[in-house]
C-alpha cells in the first residue's frame, strides 16, 4: 500500500468525527463570532451589525474586570490546593499501612460524585442555621457561634473552593499515585544509601517521574476551573454581592437572563481567548520542562 493511500484511508476513517465536530463545534463557534458583532436578541430579532461595540462595552464595563479577578482566584486557589493535597495524599497512599487498598479504592468516591450533587451536599453542609459544618465546629469548640459561610464575601469563595477541591483532589492523587508506582524502587533505595534527605529524595528522585502526569492534570484542571459554572450556580448563584460571580455565570446572565445574545457571544469569545492563551502558555511550559528533564 502506498503512503498516499494510507493517508487517504485515515482521512476517510476520520470523516464521521470531523463531520460531527464541524457541525456541533466548528459551525457554532463560527456563528458565535458572527453574533458577537451584532445586537441580536436570543429569541426573535436576528440583530444588526454593530462592529466592536459589544467588545468595547464589555471590556470597559465594571463587571468584566471584577468577574475576571474572581475567576482567576477561584482557578488559581482551587487548582493549587488540589495539586498540593493530591500529591501529599498520593505520597501517603504509596506508603505501607493497614487498609491501604481499601483507602485507595475509596479515593474514587468524591471524584465519582456528580458535580451538582457535590454542590448541593456542600450547600447543605454550609447552611448557616442548621448546617453540619457549623454544628461540628461548635461542638468541637473551634468556633463560638454558628456563622454564615456562603453569605459573607470573605468566606464564600473560599467555601466554594473547599467544596471544589474536595471533589477534585482525589483525581490528582490517583494520577500522582500511578506515577509514583512507576518509580523504580532501587533508585529511591540508592538515594537513601547515598544519604539523601526526604526532601531531596522527593525533589530530585521522585519529582521527575511525577512532573509529566501532574503537568497534564494541572492543565486540565486549570482549564476546567476557568470554565466553572455548575458548582457556583448551585451553591451561590454568584452571590453574595456578586463576590463569587465567575465569567461563565456572567455570560449566562448576559446571553440568557437578559437575552442579549450578541454581547453574550462577545463575552463568551473573550473567555475563550483567555482560556486559549492559558493553554498555549501551559503547553510551552510543558515542552520546556520536558526538554529540561
Amino acid at each position: 500500500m502506498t503512503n498516499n493511500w494510507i493517508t487517504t484511508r485515515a482521512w476517510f476513517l476520520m470523516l464521521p468525527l470531523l463531520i460531527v465536530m464541524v457541525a456541533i463545534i466548528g459551525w457554532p463557534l463560527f456563528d458565535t463570532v458572527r453574533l458577537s458583532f451584532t445586537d441580536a436578541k436570543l429569541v426573535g430579532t436576528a440583530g444588526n451589525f454593530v462592529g466592536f461595540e459589544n467588545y468595547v462595552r464589555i471590556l470597559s464595563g465594571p463587571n468584566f474586570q471584577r468577574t475576571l479577578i474572581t475567576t482567576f482566584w477561584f482557578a488559581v486557589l482551587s487548582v493549587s490546593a488540589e495539586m498540593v493535597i493530591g500529591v501529599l495524599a498520593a505520597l501517603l497512599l504509596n506508603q505501607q499501612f493497614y487498609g491501604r487498598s481499601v483507602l485507595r479504592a475509596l479515593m474514587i468516591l468524591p471524584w465519582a460524585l456528580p458535580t451538582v450533587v457535590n454542590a448541593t451536599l456542600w450547600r447543605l453542609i454550609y447552611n448557616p442555621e442548621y448546617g453540619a459544618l457549623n454544628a461540628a465546629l461548635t461542638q468541637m469548640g473551634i468556633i463560638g457561634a454558628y456563622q454564615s459561610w456562603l453569605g459573607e464575601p470573605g468566606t464564600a469563595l473560599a467555601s466554594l473552593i473547599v467544596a471544589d477541591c474536595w471533589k477534585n483532589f482525589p483525581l490528582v492523587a490517583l494520577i500522582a499515585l500511578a506515577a509514583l508506582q512507576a518509580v523504580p524502587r532501587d533508585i529511591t533505595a540508592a538515594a537513601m544509601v547515598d544519604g539523601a534527605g526526604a526532601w531531596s529524595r522527593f525533589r530530585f528522585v521522585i519529582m521527575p517521574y511525577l512532573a509529566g502526569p501532574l503537568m497534564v492534570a494541572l492543565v486540565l484542571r486549570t482549564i476546567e476551573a476557568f470554565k466553572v459554572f455548575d458548582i457556583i450556580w448551585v451553591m451561590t448563584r454568584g452571590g453574595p454581592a456578586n463576590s463569587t460571580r465567575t465569567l461563565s455565570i456572567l455570560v449566562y446572565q448576559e446571553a440568557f437572563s437578559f437575552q442579549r445574545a450578541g454581547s453574550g457571544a462577545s463575552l463568551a469569545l473573550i473567555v475563550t481567548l483567555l482560556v486559549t492563551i492559558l493553554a498555549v502558555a501551559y503547553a510551552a511550559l510543558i515542552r520546556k520542562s520536558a526538554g529540561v528533564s
Partner: protein
Amino acid sequence: MLKSVQTALLGATLLGAALFSPAHAETKINALFMAQAAYSEADVRAMTEAFTKANPDISVNLEFVPYEGLHDKTVLAQGSGGGYDVVLFDVIWPAEYATNKVLTDVTDKITPEMKSGVLPGAWTTVEYDGKRYGMPWILDTKYLFYNKEILEKAGIKAPPTTWAELAEQAKTIKDKGILATPIAWSWSQAEAAICDYTTLVSAYGGSFLKDGKPAFQTGGGLDALKYMVDSYTSGVTNPNSKEFLEEDVRRLFQNGDVAFALNWTYMYNMANDPKDSKVAGKVGVVPAPGVEGKSKVSAVNGSMGLGITSTSKHADEAWKYITFMTSQATQNQYAKLSLPIWASSYDDPAVAKGQEELIAAAKVGLAAMYPRPTTPKYQELSTALQQAIQESLLGQAKPDAALETAVQNSGL
C-alpha cells in the same frame, strides 16, 4: 388474494383507528409552575387532577422549577416548538414578555364576569400597555408575621405598626435575652430581596422610576435601603438573612428561632400546622408596617398570573385550563396557602374559616400593594438593585453610593 389483502388492510386500519383514536382526541398541554411559595406543589397537582377529571380529553403535564428558574425557563422554552402552553409569570414580567412576544394577548377572552369579579389590584398583575396577557392567579403580598408567645414573654402588647416600632420591639426582645436576632428577612441575592426592599420603599413613599428614569437612589428608595442596613448592623436582624430565601425564613420562624418575619401568605397556614411547626397556634400576622407621617401600612405587589405562550398550539385548551385554575370555586377550595383573586371571596365565611386574622391583614395589605417598576429591562434593573442591597448590607458601599451604581448598571 387481492381482496383478502384489502380486507386485512381495512381491518388493520379499523383496529388501528380503534386503538389510537382516544390518544388522538386527547390534547396534551404543558404547564410551568413554581414551587417555592404560594400554592404548594401538592395543591397544584390536586387542582390539575380535578381539571383533567372534568375534561378527560385534555391532559396536563406539570413542570415545577424554583422561582429563580421561572423567568429563564419560560424565555428559553420559546425556542422549542413543543414548549410550554401555560406559564406562570410574575407581576414584573408582562412588560418584557409582551415586548418580546412571549405571551399571547388574551384581552378578548376575558368575560365581563371576570372583569367585574376579580379585584382591580389583581388585574394589574397581567396588564401591560392596556392589554391583558393572562389571568391573575396568585394574589400575594408580604405580611409581617410575629410569634405571639415571644412578644408576650417580652411584655409587648401589640405588634408594630411602624417600621421604627418593629426595630424597637426587636431590640426589647434582644435585650431581654429571649432571642439574639429576632427578625428574619429574605435578603439573598435574588428577587426575594427586591420584594422586601419594595415593601420598605412603599412605606417610605419612594418611587423606582420617574418618567422612565431611575428615582430610587433618592428619597424613599434610599431611606428604605438605609432601614435595611440599620436593621442589619444594629444586630436585631438575623445576619444570615443575607443568604435566605423565603423558605429559609419560614423554617426559622416555624422553629421558633425568630420573633418577626416578612413573608408571603403561604407561611400563615404552614406555620400553623402542628405537624411541621413548633409555633402552631402562636402565629400572628399583620400588614407590613408603615412610616410615621408617610404611610399606615406597606405592601409589595407579589402577585402572579397564568398566561398562554405565543408558541402554544393548544391555546384554547390552555385557556380552559387557566380559567379552571383561576376560577372562584378552585381558588376558594385552596385558599389556605394563597388567597383568591375574587373580591367576593373575602366575605365568604368558608374561605375565612380558621384564618380570620390573615383575611383581616389581607384586606388592608392587598389594598396597599405597591408595584415594582414596569419596564422591559426589569431583569437588569433587579440584578443591579440586588447587588446594591447586598453591598450595602455587607458594608462594601454606603447605601447612597450603592444605589448610584445600581442606576448606572440598571440599563435604563
